[in-house]
């Protein structure tokens, strides 16, 4: 099952990097809302744009940027969670308090605000990159708690006590003993957060806060579902099915152990 999932993900990444059949933003204005055909395998949208090209390009956007956001949040989580778990005491209290605060704030509003503050002549690609990086900067709190719990456990483990007892300096303790043991947890967090950010961007896109036109992403492609009429136009579900397959593959590779949505 895991091998199948890994193979599928590789195939998706390769397909997303392939050349597009047509430009994703080219409008065939005489064929808006066209049904699937040889020229347009998934039909066209309201402006006559090829859905398949937009889906391929949107996959690139969503996967690449979700990975970057996940990397940022995991690095932040590793740093802050690691300090909290190692240092303990006030540092631990402060970091956990700040994490809880981040989890309570209305992050949707923060995204709305940042979006409104962006310079107007920034390209859509950079604007969406900033949105994802912001998601990454906001999303460190939950993984930080996991890292903190793990680091606390390792800190009290026998091998660490033994290393300290033999006079091992702190830097060596960190790099030689703690990091190698914490790496699998960090990798697991990374693989878990990538699909979480993909899903977050999709939800934002459906609420109208996602990637700006004409750049496609899974979020704004799925907005077509708002119109209904799926029974007569089942190809509208293509982005949802692809999304489910990709996220499901991530989950098959790394089963979640935390309780996140």
């Amino acid at each position, binding site marked *: 099952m895991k091998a199948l999932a890994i193979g599928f993900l590789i195939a998706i990444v390769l397909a997303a990097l392939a050349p597009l059949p047509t430009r994703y933003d080219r409008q065939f204005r005489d064929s808006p809302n066209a049904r699937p055909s040889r020229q347009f395998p998934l039909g066209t949208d309201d402006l006559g744009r090829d859905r398949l090209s937009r889906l391929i390009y949107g996959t690139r956007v969503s996967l690449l940027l979700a990975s970057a956001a996940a990397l940022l949040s995991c690095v932040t989580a590793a740093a802050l969670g690691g300090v909290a778990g190692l240092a303990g005491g006030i540092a631990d209290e402060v970091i956990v*308090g700040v994490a*809880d605060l981040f989890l309570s704030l209305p992050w949707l509003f923060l995204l709305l605000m940042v979006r409104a503050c962006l310079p107007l002549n920034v390209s859509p690609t950079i604007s969406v990159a900033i949105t994802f990086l912001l998601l990454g900067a906001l999303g460190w709190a939950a993984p930080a708690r996991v890292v903190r719990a793990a680091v606390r456990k390792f800190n009290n483990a026998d091998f660490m006590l033994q290393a300290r007892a033999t006079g091992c300096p702190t830097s060596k303790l960190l790099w030689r003993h703690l990091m190698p043991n914490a790496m699998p947890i960090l990798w697991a967090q990374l693989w878990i957060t990538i699909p979480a950010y993909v899903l977050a961007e999709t939800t934002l896109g459906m609420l109208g806060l996602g990637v700006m036109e004409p750049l496609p992403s899974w979020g704004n492609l799925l907005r077509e579902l708002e119109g209904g009429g799926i029974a007569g136009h089942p190809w509208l579900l293509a982005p949802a099915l692809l999304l*489910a397959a990709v996220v499901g593959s991530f989950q098959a590779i790394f089963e979640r152990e935390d309780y996140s*949505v």
Partner: protein
Amino acid sequence: MFGAADRHVVFRQIARIAALVLAAGLACAFLVRYAPGTMVDERELDRRLSEESIRELRSKKAQNSDVWANLRHYLGGLTRGDLGYSQSNNAPIAALIADRAPETLRELAIGLTGGWLLGLALAIPKRGWGFSALAGLLLSLPIAVIAYLCLLEGAGSYLVLVIVLAPRIFRFARNLLVQAYSALHIEMARARGVTEAKILMAHVLPAITPQLLALAAASVTMAIGATIPIEAICDVPGLGRLAWNAAMARDLPLLVNLTMLVAVATTVTMAVSEKVSPR
């Protein structure tokens, strides 16, 4: 029963929650105050208004811009049960929250109960891969997509929360049950002819109860987080939609109150979750 040490821990926890809630409210107030568009009033675009009226509108907005003064005023009002006034809804905030809260609480209650019952019911008996695959599919779809699909089928918003929570509870509970059932004493009990029902009630469930309680607390946080997109999409007149509209309208007092409410719910459930989690 409760020693001095226990009381100290409880007070500390309460103080921590109170500090966090206040910090959340203050952070939200600053965020909203300095967000683009906060100091403008949509009525300024009304073509019938004279320049004098527009100046008056702008001046009124500017008068209420000091965050610290507003905070002092708010805390004073809080002691009298006055949560302030919502400009965008033209109503006192306490009345608004009292009006909308039942809908959200109903949604949460039905969603959580339904999600748990369905999740556990499917996890407890040993099922094949079908339910697992379905759970995997539902876990892979964003909340907004599930909400839209339910909306198009005419299903209520309560069902959306059940569909969002059930697969998560199913997967976690199933993993716990698989681990619990693999224990040696369970094999022993089976070998001695103890019924499956008695094994479940007397051996398995008590062993996994602490983790289930921790998951219960976490599922409350999950459900609260899911209400905003669900209510915004399904047009449910609850607190989630109120928060969404307040964000769009830059209604500072209302947003601060709702943020503090969410902060209370989130911090309390996390504290409970940490308390009951097995070490």
